[in-house]
């Protein structure tokens, strides 16, 4: 699923490792989500939304 994670992360000057630490997941997880290869669960998507003070729809793009 396409998303704006890389942009949001860059805006805050966070590395993938920084974001991973904040989400309490591995850096590989952040990379897989960012590249659209892995779709996060709803709880993790909500966690991302809270972290970026945004909505899930503003981070992830529904391709359908």
């Amino acid at each position, binding site marked *: 699923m396409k998303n704006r994670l890389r942009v949001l992360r860059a805006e805050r000057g966070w590395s993938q490792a920084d974001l991973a630490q904040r989400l309490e*997941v*591995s*850096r590989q997880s952040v990379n897989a989500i960012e590249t659209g290869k892995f779709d996060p669960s709803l709880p993790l998507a909500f966690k991302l939304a809270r972290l970026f003070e945004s909505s899930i729809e503003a981070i992830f793009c529904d391709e359908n």
Partner: protein
Amino acid sequence: MERRLIADCKTNNPAVWRFTRRFIVLSLLYGALSGLSTYGLLLWHPTGIVIWLLAILPALPIAGAVLLTARYMAEEKDEFQSAVLVQSLLGGIGATLVVIIVWGFLENYAHFRRLDILMIWPLYLAFVGISYGLVKARYK
């Protein structure tokens, strides 16, 4: 750069560390119990239920390894790592089943040598390992 590479290769995931530590203990136990079982059966010439008990001893750590995997899945908080493991296990199970079934038909119809059932576990571990590498490469 070097520190970054080392950080990428190492894991600070506590669930992975616990799983690795427990798996090593079970592997050592498997080796010890296999030796005990083999020598016990050869040297002591047991009878009755003792033969059964000695024979199944090495299988206990393998059953433990299966339970250990289930425990790891319950302890793993990183859903991506869980997904990678599940896909690797499915790949390993699938490949092992296919190889065994193909070999079974070859035994029946092409007179291939009988496959030792004890080979299934190392075969499964090898396929899970290969599958894990392929799954990880897919997400890079």
